[in-house]
């Protein structure tokens, strides 16, 4: 249940961001992270950004997930 997923910030309104997880848009509260801008990546957990992460790190996780998805399709 503590699973958190990397998500890209696509819009910010006050304390709430729209974040994209593989194209699906979710709301993320930004109360626990500082200096987040559109284009940044965050870890999303139960409606909140719990950590800012670097783009490289996020893309690496997406790559691993894609690899698993591809392997499961075979």
């Amino acid at each position, binding site marked *: *249940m503590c699973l958190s997923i990397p998500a890209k910030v696509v819009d910010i309104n006050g304390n709430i961001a729209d974040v994209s997880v593989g194209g699906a848009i979710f*709301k993320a509260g930004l109360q626990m992270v500082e200096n987040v801008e559109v284009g940044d990546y965050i870890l999303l957990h139960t409606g*909140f950004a719990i950590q800012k992460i670097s783009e490289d790190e996020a893309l690496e*996780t997406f790559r*691993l997930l894609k690899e698993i998805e591809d392997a499961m399709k075979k």
Partner: protein
Amino acid sequence: MKLSGLIKKAAVLDYTFMEVCGGHTAAIHRFGIPSLLPENIKLISGPGCPVCVTHTSFIDKAVGYSKIDDVIISTFGDLMRVPGTGSSLEKEKAKGGDIRIVFSGPEAVDIAKENIDKKVIFLGIGFETTAPGIAVTIKEAEKVHVENFYLLSAHKVMPPAMEVIIKEGVNLNGFICPGHVAAITGSDYFNFIPEKYNIGCVITGFEPVDILQSIYMLVNQVNMRLAETEIQYSRAVSRQGNSIAQKNISDVFILCDEYWRGFGEIASSGLKLRKEYEKFDAEEMMPIKVKKQKDNDLCICGDILRGLKTPHECELFATACVPENPVGACMVSVEGACNTFYKFRMNE
């Protein structure tokens, strides 16, 4: 050389490691990690699936509240099928109870705003990863004067349960520590384990390669007779963690004694709303009494959560207890040891 090869080469002793987090349990079995390890490395599941350790009395209370006419229960979906003593939230919903699944605290507050003639109770479960979001939710609810929103808290903190397991004498050579708990708390939070008990900790991510790398790090610690806290999951975890999230937890919650399924009461292992936020505390504002009843005698979820037994040692496993009709919480949650064994390790 591939990681599994490196592990095989390095594993010259016998090792037992516990994955604390339910997310790790699920990943380990979904990806067949035990099949990549030599026989002298044993992985056992720990107490870190919040659904699994939610005490029957908590479900009974939630079921009790759901029967009150002007109450709406809002909950993470994971809790719906967890059996209480006589019923579950799913069964109560089928009977007409107003029970709604949400993905976050703020969604539950929205339900409260839309239903001002009702009382909305949010079932708060989860560890240090989830608690700060709920803390922020409570603060925001106060800020905008939402007066019909309540929390029934079963939030828990991880270290006391880990300590209970160590003290019970489960033979462990290392902990695969929860990555997203540590994203909040920082890895230093776990330092007491190597320092006090000489057992190594590696903060671990959730992809199969993360888990294999952590096992490799733990094997090396044991081989070198070291016990320290290392961070494998450096892309999300620092030594100090997220200080804003930590502050939110401590602003809103205080530690309390808490019941864990399988463990009983563990001192200072739960999070209760502070006095200042008492008006949001469902149990303070609308006390409810439930009869304490015994769990099914044959269910060994408790022993499994404490690392003492595996699902295959349970008489009910895959007979009376299956995912469609679970007896114990470990069969309900997709992160539960019994559920993952049922799906991925039936042929053993």
